[in-house]
């Protein structure tokens, strides 16, 4: 059973239609990438999935998991400047101090923040801030993490580094990740599935599956196709399906 199912979802703000007739299922342990041109309603879709915005039409149904198990990493990371890395990661944790400390330790290790965990955000690089934001959400043990353009403003190397962090995360924890990006590189490197939205009001234009099964060369070729295809309806090479 899918974790979250969107059926015929539409959303408008006043007279401006933002999402149009979206049907989408989010499955366990997948990385679903939502792509599309600026203003096509990617962030709105993410907020609808999160249950933060009710759709005007259609329904959002949640599978057998606690809705609190949804984590949301916002476009601006908003790592709290008055807390250290450890305190930021532990912000939402409850329970005994010893258990909390252990969970924070694990997260610091997983995200490669050892040695920087007593720093304040102003002492960190953009990539590290990104990790703290991820850690602060992940430590709460979500079943789904929604990420809104989490790699914006990072250089190529940091981006690649975080790609592997996110992939590792899915493999080691089985968490589902829904990631909004306008970057094809992010999409083909991370996505197990890619949803392409049309120019606003966003409707689903194409869904590409099994991206993670592609070889590197196939993936590059697919990425080029996505980039070049003015209709953005590139198809996944047959070997993947």
């Amino acid at each position, binding site marked *: 059973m899918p974790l979250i199912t969107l059926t015929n979802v539409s959303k408008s703000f006043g007279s401006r239609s933002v999402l149009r007739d979206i049907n989408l299922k989010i499955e366990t342990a997948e990385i679903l990438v939502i792509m599309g041109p600026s203003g096509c309603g990617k962030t709105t879709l993410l907020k609808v999935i999160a249950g933060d915005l009710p759709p005007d039409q259609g329904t959002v149904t949640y599978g057998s998991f606690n809705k609190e198990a949804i984590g949301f990493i916002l476009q601006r990371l908003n790592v709290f400047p*008055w*807390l250290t890395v450890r305190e930021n990661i532990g912000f939402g944790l409850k329970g005994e101090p010893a258990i909390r400390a252990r969970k924070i330790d694990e997260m610091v290790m997983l995200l490669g923040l050892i040695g920087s965990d007593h720093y*304040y955000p102003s002492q960190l690089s953009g990539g590290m801030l990104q990790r703290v934001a991820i850690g*602060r959400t992940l430590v709460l043990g979500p079943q789904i993490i929604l990420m809104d353009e989490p790699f914006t403003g990072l250089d190529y190397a940091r981006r690649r580094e975080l790609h592997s962090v996110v992939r590792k995360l899915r493999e080691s924890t089985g968490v589902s990740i829904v990631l909004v990006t306008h970057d094809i590189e992010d999409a083909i490197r991370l996505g197990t599935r890619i949803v392409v939205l049309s120019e606003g009001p966003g409707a689903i234009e194409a869904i590409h599956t099994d991206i993670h099964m592609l070889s590197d060369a196939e993936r590059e070729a697919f990425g080029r196709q996505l980039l070049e295809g003015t209709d953005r309806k590139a198809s996944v090479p047959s070997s993947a399906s």
Partner: protein
Amino acid sequence: MAPTLRTMAPFVFVLGFWCLGYEIGGFPPQLLPSPLAVLEAFIVQLGSQSFWIGLGVSIGRVFVGFMLSAVLAVPVGLLMTWNRGFRDSYTPLNNYIRYLPVAALVPLLILWLGIGFANKVAVIFIGTFFQLTIMLHDNFRQVPLGYLEAARWVGARNSLDLIWRVVLPYRLPYVMDDLKVALGWAWSYLLVAEIVAANSGVGFEIIQAQRFLQTQKLMALILVVGFIGVVFDWLFDRMNRTMFRWRLLEDHR
């Protein structure tokens, strides 16, 4: 130039100007005593019990009046920021009182409260509270919505949680800045109230010195008031630096 030298230079300049004025101005010492005479008067004051009692009384009045004002202004500032109904109905009254010169209220407060402790506390409270609420409201408004949204996604449950865990810890160093400014006003208003009517306190000592034409004592007391202000400022900055290291790092980024 060493920081201490840099900070002392303007004081030395003012002192030099004073010496020059005294030497070539030919003013009578009842109008402009020499720096040396003022220093002498200051030393005499250090040995006088009434000076220390007056100082203690004044500091006590400022402390109580200012604390009362600060402790109440923080929740009112928060309410003004997060409760639109409260803000809309309360702000006009707050601003009306804010524009009333406190000095104009002193005679009325004497009628109501006498010339003792309660009167001084009331003057300080009225002089600072209605300014502080506006400053704190502005201060709390600076919290980026993103912090609140992010906190909500990682477990902050309600407005109280957000205020306690996000707004206050984030804005506290800046609240301290506001308090530092307001403390300066508290001193000023206390002196006004003590000079108008009191039977103790630094202001009372000042007006007594003026009545007896002890200008050197008068000036020594004024210098003491300024000095205490500088010490309070220093204490605030020191506290800010030790309590909120993150802000220091942020400022020097």
